[in-house]
């Protein structure tokens, strides 16, 4: 695109983000502050993920963008079109064909492979933020590895509801050290973080933080011996592909409140239907 550098960001900004990414990878789960820039899209709409994608993307890369698991939701379409325009890269909807996948709120159902990079859009990177709003305080808690408050919060849920009432953005501990927010993915996706073959990068543009989980890194979801971590389950199967093991979205089909369930991962669902058919 005329007037702008390859992938929009100028080279100095990319280098700043690249240096921060190396530190993020070296200290898994630690939130590295970075000089986040304004992007031509609103904060909160994926500017952090986009800055990371822009900094790592090359002309030969094939890019996939998903929002809520789907390739054709408005924001995914918009971000994909942005990179087609400013970087001229090839894009795909096929998880297996992508080198870089930018995502909001899901990890694809198809297991990621070595050499793939998953870039998460993160709204609030600080897992302790809703317990302690002050950045100065949460920074100290991470420094001292003082995570008791998080366990207290989860245990209060159990006392009140009999369950941990956190269903998405469920906190994890990375390589036994940092408690990390995996972004608002459903906790259904948390097990995919553990010992993943792919590199996972997390970008929070408005909050100006980035962090990473290298491939093959231990990632545990916080839990208790008497209340082990568990994921969502559905009694239904996907109405389109029949899957009984993927994350399902509920679709209301008429005024009477009838509903059906379909895979949130559109590529996974389409691929299965191709196989089934």
């Amino acid at each position: 695109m005329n007037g702008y550098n390859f992938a929009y960001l100028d080279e100095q900004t990319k280098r700043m983000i690249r240096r921060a990414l190396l530190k993020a990878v070296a200290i898994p789960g630690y939130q590295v502050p970075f000089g986040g820039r304004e992007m031509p899209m609103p904060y909160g709409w994926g500017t952090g993920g986009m800055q990371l994608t822009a900094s790592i993307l090359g002309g030969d890369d094939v890019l996939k963008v998903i929002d809520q698991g789907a390739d054709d939701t408005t924001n995914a379409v918009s971000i994909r079109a942005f990179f087609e325009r400013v970087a001229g890269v090839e894009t795909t909807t096929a998880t297996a064909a992508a080198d870089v996948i930018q995502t909001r709120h899901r990890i694809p159902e198809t297991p990621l492979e070595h050499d793939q990079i998953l870039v998460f859009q993160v709204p609030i990177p600080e897992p302790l933020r809703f317990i302690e709003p002050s950045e100065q305080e949460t920074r100290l808690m991470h420094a001292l590895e003082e995570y008791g408050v998080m366990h207290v919060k989860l245990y209060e849920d159990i006392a009140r509801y009999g369950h941990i009432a956190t269903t998405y953005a469920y906190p994890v501990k990375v390589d036994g050290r940092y408690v990390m927010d995996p972004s608002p993915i459903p906790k259904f996706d948390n097990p995919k973080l553990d010992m993943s073959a792919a590199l996972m990068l997390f970008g929070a543009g408005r909050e100006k933080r980035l962090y990473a989980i290298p491939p093959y890194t231990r990632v545990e979801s916080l839990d208790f011996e008497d209340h082990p971590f568990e994921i969502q389950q559905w009694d239904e199967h996907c109405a389109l592909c029949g899957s009984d093991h993927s994350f399902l979205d509920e679709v209301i089909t008429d005024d009477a409140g009838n509903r059906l369930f379909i895979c949130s991962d559109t590529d996974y669902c389409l691929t299965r239907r191709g196989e089934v058919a």
Partner: protein
Amino acid sequence: MYVAVKGGEQAIANAHRLLADRRRGEREQAELSVEQIGGQLRLAVDRVMSEASLYDPELAALALKQASGDLVEAVFLLRAYRTTLPRLAVSEPLDTGTMRIERRISAAYKDIPGGQVLGPTYDYTHRLLDFMQLAEGETPEPARADAALARCPQILDLLNAEGLIEREHDDGSEPADITRDPPDYPVDRAARLQMLARGDEGYLLALGYSTQRGYGRNHPFAGEIRLGHVDVEIHVKEWDETICIGEIALSECQMINQFGGSREVAPQFTRGYGLAFGHNERKTLAMALVDRALRAEELGEPISGPAQQAEFVLAHADSVEASGFVSHLKLPHYVDFQSELELLRRLRKAHGNARGSGDAAMEDAV
């Protein structure tokens, strides 16, 4: 079969075409020019420049036109453009003492050296709708002074000479640059003033107002408000010379606040400071109040009001960040919502079962 709402590229493109149509309005009407916006809606232009941190009246006017007059959207457009610009040079600190004055008032003294200059102000206008403007009446030429205003001394410097007001020291250190480095709380005053200068006017106004109503009161006097043009200079290393590269319009407010003092330091007035591009007087007053409120910890005052809590005030001042994150609620969240639905149904089922068995037990007892 019904499938979930899908947005296609075509839908987005159509939405943007419709937006352009609404922006243009009735085609029989003449199109609004960027020059007209710059010339006749200049206070909006100044506010957009200030909060976007980019001094370019023409592009700010363009942003206003493109945003159909939505100030927050226009600030965002200009800020997003600003971030792509290379940094060619760093200017010398601006000297507002050399300002070519267009307006300058002090509420602290009746008369001041150089005089009170009202300039172009809405103050003392009776807020009566002027129906002449509806009929597009002629505007008379303004009365102008014969001679340009001489350089006016700054009121706070006069107090400074007497030692009545705290001195500001330049320790020569490199100031933080909030456009390059994320805020590292607690931030120093230089970073704080930068954050306030690009902060949303309405937000700062409300916070400043709250200090006047007792939530962190600091007894302010508008020591001096000045508005005019200041030279921008850069130092050219190769020539070892400082050259003027142009001038910009600025508004500045220096607030005088109640004295502090301690066993070591004699009581003296303290300062709050506000600065903005263009004619942005209300913004600078609010900024000065909030700047002073945020000095509570430094001056050993009790922190009792929201305007005194630095991290709270500063982290939420930027309208580009705030409007982005609030409006992101419009994006699909159905995966997260589905997760909550699943849990809520499970909890309600468990609740029902517990109540059901409880009722049965009661009946057994009876």
